[in-house]
């Protein structure tokens, strides 16, 4: 299958390993990758700030470029939710209304694509470490992704998954919220780090690099040894 991979701006810029791992995994499964280099951002920051016209300016290109793809895989639960759930709302009543719906129907988040669309859980990965999984809110509640990443992690050789308390509670990132209300965002993140730390895991794993960026930022500032890692990087480990 030809898989069109949407790499969100912050993964492109700061977490390329997550995207590269996805390419490796999908190619190993025999799929060919189409990476639309002309796309950068899905428009979510503007959308979440209420600036829908500005969001459409960016999102229009995404719709136009991806609407004819066979399958679109998004390297983040949050941006995946943007394409899957919020584009149809953003473009409602515009000329791209139908295209946005069509795109939504062929868009999946990475772990969901592997498990639900391809029916794969064992990727032959090896990652000998104790980890805990953070459910990103958009993946969890907008896209219904809960069991998929766990099914994938269960097959990883040497990996031990320990669930943290309140794994489903928001880490406090929330996009522009993290900068507009840093005190609340930090308080939420501190609780997340505390719960993850209590499991004595070495890594916090998630399918959303945006949550991990916030969590890692807090951990680094506090000088903690706990590390964050994207699910795809674990699945590509040998």
């Amino acid at each position, binding site marked *: 299958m030809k898989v069109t991979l949407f790499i969100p701006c912050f993964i*492109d810029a700061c977490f390329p390993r997550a995207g590269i791992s996805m390419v490796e995994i999908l190619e190993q499964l025999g799929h060919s990758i189409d*990476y639309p280099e002309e796309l*950068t951002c899905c428009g979510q920051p503007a959308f979440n*700030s209420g600036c829908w016209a*500005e969001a459409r300016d960016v999102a229009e290109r995404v719709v136009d470029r991806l609407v004819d793809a066979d399958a679109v895989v998004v390297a983040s639960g949050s941006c995946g939710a943007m394409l899957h759930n919020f584009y149809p709302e953003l473009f409602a009543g515009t000329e791209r209304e139908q295209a946005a719906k069509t795109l939504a129907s062929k868009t999946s988040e990475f772990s969901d694509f592997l498990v639900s669309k391809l029916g794969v859980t064992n990727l032959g990965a090896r990652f000998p470490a104790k980890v805990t999984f953070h459910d990103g809110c958009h993946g969890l509640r907008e896209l219904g992704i809960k069991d998929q990443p766990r099914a994938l992690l269960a097959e990883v050789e040497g990996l031990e998954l320990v669930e943290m308390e309140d794994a489903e509670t928001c880490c406090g990132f929330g996009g522009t*919220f993290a900068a507009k209300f840093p005190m609340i965002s930090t308080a*939420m993140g501190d609780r997340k780090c505390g719960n993850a730390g209590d499991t004595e895991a070495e890594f916090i794993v998630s399918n959303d690099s945006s949550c991990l960026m916030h969590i890692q*930022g807090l951990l680094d500032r506090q000088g903690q040894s706990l590390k964050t890692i994207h699910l795809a990087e674990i699945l590509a480990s040998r």
Partner: protein
Amino acid sequence: MIAPSTQFKQDAIRITGDDQRLNLIHTGMKKYEASRGVRQSAFKDWQSARQTAAEIKWDAINHLDTHLVEFADKLEANGAKVHWASNAQQARDIIMGIVRDKGARSIVKSKVMTGEEIHLNQALEKEGYDVVESDLGEYIVQLRHEEPYHFVFPAMHLARGEISDLFERELGSAPTDNPEELTMIARRAIREKYITADIGISGANFGVAETGMISITENEGNARLTCAMPNVHISLMGIEKVLPKLRDLAIFLPMLATAGSGQALTGYNSMYRGPRAEGESDGPEEFHVVLLDNRRTELLADPEQRDALHCIRCGACLNVCPIYRNIGGHAYGTTYQGPIGSVITPHLRGLQDWKHLSGASSLCGACTQTCPVKINLHEHLLQNRRNASSEKPVWWEKIAFKLAGFAMNRPALFQLGLKVAHLAQPLHGLVKGSVLDPARAWTKTRELPEVAGESFRDYWKKRS
């Protein structure tokens, strides 16, 4: 006067630093979560119960005009007096009118959130009336001269020791750490009031159109006494509380108890349909129902957010909200706190003044997931943000997104930006966290991620 958004930020900074208070809130909410989970699983199918409840409320709200008229007609046929209040001032005037008319001195209230909404206590006290809250939590915050912390659990932010100190100071009781003793101290003080009160004021959890009844849900029995003992009973009810049929309570009473406090049913559920009838031995001589609009009809006129009127004020969205759990109730500065408060307050009190509450959300969706009547709460927060921005754009935000969009739509420019950012990164250390730091909102508590030397785009180019 300080702007609500400035006050909110100041309070949020203060409270997020108060670990002791926040731990109290977290502990309380964890207990709620556990008991709610048990009660919810006792439903044969909680999700279809939610669906049914949402459909009943849809009918109730979308045909509010007919249901309200039926409700009022039935009440009057039962001997109650119905008053229509368009706004807070009218509602206060109606109630003050009844109070003056009766020559009342002393008033006892059960928990009335609509009363908080129209600042009823202040109005009554200003005219010299003796007003006492009979709900334990409300009584405690009244003694502390505070607003309720949570519209279901008004005093949830207080530790037992603080309540004991308060009672010792205000009521002269002996200090105790025993919750039952504390309850008894308050009960002794309040019981006196039922006997002497001329007027009892209650809210209404539901109004049944079919029978012309108000339904009140409670755990302490205080509402029963408030409604039954004084000679006059006034119920102040938001117009959105009407349900079409009596049988609807079969789902809403257990649902409210489960979602609200993790109970199968609350201790007391009472229905009132009119004043004491001939041959009856007790009950008030007069029963007034004041129906409050106070801009609810403006929300009703908005098809996109009309479902916010489905709210049964169970408070579940507050209980699961990570924002509420980290800033508490007072920071909101509203009658209705938490996600539902952030959704409706801009409609009730002005979008531009209260839009910050819709911004103060990570949009995690826990509220929407938990809401028993399926209000799309976090979606409405997004819509409030959009409406606020199109009504009165924030110029710097608009420019920022226009510039960002310009770069994002030109991948070469975006990539050049990344290269510059990568090279400039070491320089950021010179200003990091200082007032000169453009990323200060982030870097005050967090490290920034590093911009990779080789982006994904670079990797892809190299490969092909």
